[in-house]
């Protein structure tokens, strides 16, 4: 059932409302689709065209940009690493923060406020401030140059944002649901796993999407904490086009376009499936 259908507003107001709605939607569509189109077109241009006429169409479509994107940087070798890092860092992050958010949103215990203080501070600081402590930490634990170093670091870096999101969604779930479950003899763990987690799914999906995109695009810690091909991610491959004195924009854009595909796929399929599954599901009735 579309919510629009049953309103009693007068016709001119409805028409005006519709017009405004579609004006906003189409204007914003232009603003958001523009970078994608621009990036995709630029990936087919020469460096000279990009530097001197960035908004023209390519004079000759430079398909070899994509060939050199792969051959110069060895992009394909890094895809698997990026996927492993982003998937596992996101899973670990969601597991850890959902456990914590559930406890914090639903229970009283000493030092509860400390978690808010730390996560608030954590979400405020540019994470680049922690380069020296993180490098020290990772090398002390002998994790330098491993995928695990990135998984642990990324899952930790995303804790504050995920905590904010997930606990926010968990708090908005009516308490009565849990209370009745508890009367039915549900344990603490069952309440988490059976009642709250399914209902907090929009929060989990949102936090997971953010985490995945962060892990996929992160550059400076990937550079700092890894050194060999076996532990590096696609962002380092993209930077192979920016050397000390020159940037090969054509190659870089082609590489960016190629590396964007997995994140877009993850977003479109995963996010869309889960959210729309939810819309069709029980909650909305």
């Amino acid at each position, binding site marked *: *059932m*579309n*919510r*629009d259908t*049953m*309103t009693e507003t007068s016709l001119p107001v409805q028409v005006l409302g519709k017009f405004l*709605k579609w004006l906003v*939607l189409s204007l914003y*569509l232009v603003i*958001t689709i523009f*970078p*994608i189109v621009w990036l995709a077109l630029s990936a087919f241009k020469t460096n000279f065209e990009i530097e001197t*006429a*960035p*908004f023209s169409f390519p004079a000759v479509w430079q398909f070899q940009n994509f060939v050199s994107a792969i051959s110069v940087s060895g992009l394909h070798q890094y895809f698997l690493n990026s996927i492993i890092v982003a998937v596992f860092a996101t899973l670990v992050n969601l*597991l850890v923060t959902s*456990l*914590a*958010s559930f*406890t*914090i949103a639903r*229970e009283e*215990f000493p030092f*509860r*406020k400390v978690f*808010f203080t730390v996560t*608030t*501070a*954590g*979400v405020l*600081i*540019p*994470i*680049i*401030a*922690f*380069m020296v*402590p*993180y490098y020290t*930490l990772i090398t002390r634990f002998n994790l330098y140059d491993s995928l695990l170093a990135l998984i642990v670091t990324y*899952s*930790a870096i995303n804790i504050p944002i995920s905590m*904010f*999101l997930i*606990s*926010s*969604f968990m*708090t*908005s779930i009516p308490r009565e649901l849990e209370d009745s479950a508890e009367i039915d003899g549900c344990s*603490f*763990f069952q309440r988490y796993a059976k009642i709250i987690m399914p209902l907090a799914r*929009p*929060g989990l999906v*949102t936090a997971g999407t953010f985490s995945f*995109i962060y892990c996929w695009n992160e*550059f400076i810690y990937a550079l700092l904490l890894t050194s060999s091909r076996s532990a590096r991610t696609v962002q380092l491959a993209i930077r192979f086009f920016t050397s000390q004195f020159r940037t090969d924009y054509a190659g870089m*854009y082609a590489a960016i376009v190629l590396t964007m595909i997995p994140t877009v796929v993850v*977003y479109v399929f995963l996010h869309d499936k889960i959210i*729309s599954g939810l819309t069709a599901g029980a909650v909305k*009735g």
Partner: protein
Amino acid sequence: MKKLTKKTNRNLKWIIIFLIPVTVLLIAFFVYPIVYLAFLGFMEWDGISAMSFVGISNYTRTFGDSVFQTSIKNNLIWALSAAFLQIPLALVIALILAREPRGWRFLRTVYFLPNVISLVALAMLWRAMYNPEFGAVNFFLSQLGLEHMTRNWLGELDTALPAVIFSYQVYIGYFMVIILAGTMSIPKTFYEAAMIDGANILQQERYITLPAIRGIIVTAGTLAVAFALRQFETTFLMTAGGPANRTPVMGLYMYRRMAGLRYGQAAATGVLLILLGVVVLSGMQRIFGKSDAIEDAHQ
């Protein structure tokens, strides 16, 4: 309250188990580095030689720097713009999409896509857009006969900061997704009841949707403001703080001190950034109420 305490005792074992992982990671990746920053803020250190204790001189020095003062001002402008322009835009779009107009799935995906592109590419695009020699912004203006409005957007004193902020905050994907997810979880029956009572769309949004997602909006706002306060990559890539020191932000100021091997001052800046953020966020809570996440902690 009494019931809660009893319950807590019974669940204490579970609470501890559930909190161990997050505690370990928070201590290693946030508490330890923040304590380290707080400590380093009182030291003079070039990263190589021995540290020396200098009291609060890193702080006085930072506050005395006019570039830092501009950075605080700019950070506040960033934060205000996040709270009063970016979030309302995200809210409007999310509310429209939540009513599932034609093609809303497609729109939702496209609206989010710029957030998937790396900041480097977005900055390159917007630098090209704003360029006065071959940029698209001036081109459109002159096509519309507004030749007198064309300018060097990133290279003029009064336009550079708004131009940088716009290029970052116009992409609301993250916040749209948060608000949309919140809106989608409102039971549809609420609306059906309202429609029977004859409420129009605006009334429905005003009396059903907004109260139901107030906490989610504040969460989105908190994150938007936090991102606005800590961002420095976009500023670094777009203007590097120029022209004439008009666009620096605290994060960039801190990064610059690190590059200048003034680790003590960089740490002091980091601490000040956290403090400013706490002040801004609690000011926001005063005005808008608490986000669901923070609410309970303060009761």
